[in-house]
C-alpha cells in the first residue's frame, strides 16, 4: 500500500512546502494578533500583581490611581494601618513622564514606593533593591537603561541600582521605581522659572506680604512649595480577613474609596483598556476569518490544479475513498506544517514588539484545532469537486 498523498507531495514538494510556509506566516500573524490582545490584558493584570496589594485606598469617588487621578494626604496611611485586618499599608505615587538618560529618552511610569512595603518590586532581574532613601532607582529592562547609569527625573539624577522584568503600567509603559519622597517632589515640583514666578506672585499679594507681620511671607512660600500628597495607599490584608471586610470601614468611616483586587481588575480590564482591547479583538476576528478563507482557497485551488491526475486515477479505477483520503491528508498536512511554522515565527518575532506579546499555550492549542478544522472543511469542498470529475477528462481534456 503506497501513500498517494505522500507520493503527490514528493512529486511537487517545493510548491507544497512554499505554500505551507506562506500559510504558516499567515497563521503566525493571527497568533501574534491574539498575543497582542493577551499581552494588553496581561499588562493590566501585571500592574495589579506586581503592586502586591489586596486593597487600593484612593480618593473618595474616584477610580484611581490607574484609571483616574487620585490624591490623598500621605498621613492617611497611618489611620488605615490602625484598622482591623490590615497587615501592611504603604503610600504609593504614580506619574507617567519622560525619563532621560543622556540623549536617550523613555516614556515611563515613575512609581514612588516605600522600601520593604507593598508597591516595591518583588523580584529583580539584576542588581539590588534600593538602600538609600533618595536618588536611587530600580528600572524595568524595557526602559533600556543599564545598571550604574544615571537617569534624570525632573531636577535630580538617580543611579540605576536594580532591574526588573514585566513591571509595566496598564498602558505598557515600563516602570521606574524611586523612593517615595523623591517621587512626591518630582510630581509636584515645578521648574525654576515657575517657582520664581509663583514667589513673586505671592509676594505681590498684600494680604500675604504684610509689613507688620514679619515672617508671614516666608511661611506662606514654604507652605506653597511642599507636597504631602500621594496617589493611593496599598493595603495587604491579614490572613483570615477578606478584602471586602477590610474595605467596608475604610469606605464608611475614613471617607475614602477602597477597591479590592477583583474590582481593580474590573476597572483596568473592563474600563481602562476596554476600547483598545476591543479594537484588537475585532481585528483578530477579521484576521481569523480571512486566514480561514485563504486556507480554504489554497486547498481548493491545489486540488483543482491536480484535477487531470485525479481523472486518471478514477480512470484506472481508484476508489473514491482513496482519492478523498489523499486530499484530506494533504490538507491536514498543509495545516499542520503551517501551524508549526506560524507558532515558531510568532515566538521568534514576539519579543521584538515594543509592547508585550503574550503567546498563551491555550490560544496555540485552540489555534491548532481551528486550523485543522478549517483544513478539513476546506478539503471537503475540494473532495466534492474531485469526486464529481469525469474520468473521461483524463483522455478528453
Amino acid at each position, binding site marked *: 500500500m503506497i501513500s498517494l498523498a505522500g507520493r503527490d507531495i514528493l512529486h511537487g514538494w517545493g510548491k507544497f512546502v512554499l505554500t505551507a510556509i506562506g500559510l504558516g506566516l499567515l497563521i503566525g500573524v493571527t497568533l501574534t494578533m491574539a498575543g497582542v490582545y493577551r499581552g494588553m490584558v496581561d499588562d493590566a493584570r501585571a500592574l495589579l500583581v506586581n503592586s502586591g496589594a489586596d486593597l487600593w485606598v484612593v480618593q473618595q469617588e474616584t477610580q484611581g490611581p490607574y484609571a483616574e487621578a487620585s490624591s490623598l494626604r500621605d498621613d492617611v496611611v497611618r489611620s488605615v494601618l490602625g484598622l482591623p485586618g490590615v497587615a501592611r499599608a504603604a503610600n504609593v505615587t504614580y506619574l507617567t513622564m519622560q525619563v532621560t538618560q543622556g540623549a536617550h529618552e523613555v516614556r515611563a511610569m515613575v512609581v514612588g514606593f516605600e522600601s520593604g512595603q507593598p508597591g516595591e518590586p*518583588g523580584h529583580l532581574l539584576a542588581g539590588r533593591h534600593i538602600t538609600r532613601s533618595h536618588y536611587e532607582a530600580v528600572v524595568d529592562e524595557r526602559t533600556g537603561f543599564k545598571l550604574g547609569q544615571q537617569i534624570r527625573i525632573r531636577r535630580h539624577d538617580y543611579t540605576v541600582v536594580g532591574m526588573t522584568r514585566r513591571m509595566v503600567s496598564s498602558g505598557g509603559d515600563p516602570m521606574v521605581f524611586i523612593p517615595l519622597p523623591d517621587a512626591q517632589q518630582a510630581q509636584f515640583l515645578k521648574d525654576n522659572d515657575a517657582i520664581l514666578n509663583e514667589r513673586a506672585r505671592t509676594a505681590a499679594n498684600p494680604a500675604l506680604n504684610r509689613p507688620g507681620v514679619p515672617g508671614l511671607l516666608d511661611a506662606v512660600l514654604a507652605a506653597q512649595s511642599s507636597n504631602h500628597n500621594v496617589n493611593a495607599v496599598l493595603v495587604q490584608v491579614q490572613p483570615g480577613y477578606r478584602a471586602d471586610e477590610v474595605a467596608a470601614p475604610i469606605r464608611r468611616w475614613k471617607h475614602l474609596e477602597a477597591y479590592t483586587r477583583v474590582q481593580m481588575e474590573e476597572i483596568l480590564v473592563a474600563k481602562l483598556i476596554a476600547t483598545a482591547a476591543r479594537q484588537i479583538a475585532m481585528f483578530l476576528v477579521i484576521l481569523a476569518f480571512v486566514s480561514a478563507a485563504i486556507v480554504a482557497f489554497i486547498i481548493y485551488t491545489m486540488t483543482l490544479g491536480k484535477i487531470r491526475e485525479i481523472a486518471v486515477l478514477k480512470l484506472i479505477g481508484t476508489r473514491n475513498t482513496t482519492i478523498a483520503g489523499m486530499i484530506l491528508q494533504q490538507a491536514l498536512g498543509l495545516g499542520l506544517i503551517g501551524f508549526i511554522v506560524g507558532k515558531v515565527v510568532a515566538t521568534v518575532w514576539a519579543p521584538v514588539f515594543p509592547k508585550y506579546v503574550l503567546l498563551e499555550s491555550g490560544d496555540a492549542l485552540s489555534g491548532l484545532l481551528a486550523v485543522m478544522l478549517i483544513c478539513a472543511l476546506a478539503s471537503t469542498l475540494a473532495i466534492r469537486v474531485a469526486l464529481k470529475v469525469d474520468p473521461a477528462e483524463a483522455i478528453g481534456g
Partner: protein
Amino acid sequence: MKRATPLSRRIGLLLMLLVLLAGMAYVALRSGPLAPTRVTVVHAASGSFAPSLFGIGTVEARRSVLIGPTAAGRVVRVLVDVGDRVKAGQLLAEMDPVDLDQRLAAQQAALARAGSTASAVQAQLRDTTARREMTRLATQRTIELGRQNFISTGAVEAKLQEQTSADAALSAAESNLAAARQDLQRLGAERDALQQQRDRLRLLAPADGLVISRDAEAGTTLVAGQPVLRLIDPSSLWIRTRLDQGRSAGLAVGLPAQIVMRANPGQALPGRLVRIEAVSDSITEERVAQVAFDALPPGVSVGELAEVTLQLAQTSPAIVLPNASLQRLGDRLGVWRLVDGSPSFVPVRIGQASLDGQVQVLEGLRSGDAVVVHSERALNAAMRVKVVPALAANTP
C-alpha cells in the same frame, strides 16, 4: 507505476521536517509552560560589612543673627552690603532718631539749669550757716549778760528764739541743697536713658560675621524685630541632615561622615556628626542630625544640597546575602533556597543592611546554602529553575 524518487528530494524533505521539529521543540522549551525559569544563585557565606546611613541635607549656619531695630522706625543708612565681612562692634546701619537728638539737647539744658540751681542753693546754705554762726555768738553773749542781770529775761528769750530760727533756716537750706542734687541726679539719669536710646539706633555687629542678606534700604520703615541685615558666622557652617526614621538605627554623635556637595558631586568631603536633634519630623518621618565639616571647603553656600553618608562600625560576622534575594511570601520574609535543583521558601530573620545592598541573615540559613538572587519571574515551589550566571544581558 512505481517510480524511483530522487534521493535528494527525500533528503530535502527530511531536512525540512527536522528543521520544523527543531523549531517546535525550541518554542516548546523556551516559551511554553515547560520552559524553566532562569535564576541566578549565590551561596550563603559568613561575613561582615560596615553598614552606613544615608541622608540628604542642606548647608546651614550654626550661628546666624538678624540685625534689626528694637523699636519701630525708619532706616537712615545701611553701611554694608551682602558678602561683606564685618568685625564685632562695627557700625552696620543706622535708624532715624527723629526728635531724639533735640530731646537730648533739652535734657542737657535742663541738667545745666539744675546744676545752676544747685550752686545757688549751695550759696544760700553758706549764707544761712554764716547767719546762724553770728546768731549763735550773739545768743551766748546775751545769755551771759542775762545771768549778770544786765538785761531783762525777755530780751534773753527773744535772742534764744532767734537762735532756734537760725538753726531751722540752716536745716531748710541743707534740705534744699539735697533736693537740688537729687534733681541733678534724676536729670542726669534721664539724659543717660535718652543717650542709650540714641545709641540703640546705631546697629552694630555683635560678632565677626558675613552679611548674607540686606533686607531693608535707607528710607524703609520697619517694625520692631524686622531685620535690616542678616549675618552668619561662616566658620560655623554645618549640614542639617535628614535621615529616614526607618533607616536611622545606630545614629550617634561622633560618627564619621562623608559629605558630597551638589556643586561638586565627584568629591567626598570628610565630616563628623556633631548633634542629633531631640525632635524628629513627624510629618516627613525623618530624623534630623547636624554634620560638621572637618575642614570647611571654600565656596560653600548656605542652602546648598548635600548628600551625607554616615559610617557605622563593622558588624559582627553573620551570614550575608544580597538584598535582592529577600522575598515576601504572604506575610513572611524569606529567601528561595535551592535544594536538589528545586526552589523552596525559607523564612529568615534579618539584621543590619549596608548601602551597597548586603543584608545580614540572623536565622534561617546555614553557610553554603544556595539561594536564588535574581529570577525571571516570581518563583513558586513547583517551578523548574535553571541556574545561569546573569539574567540581564547588560549587567556589567
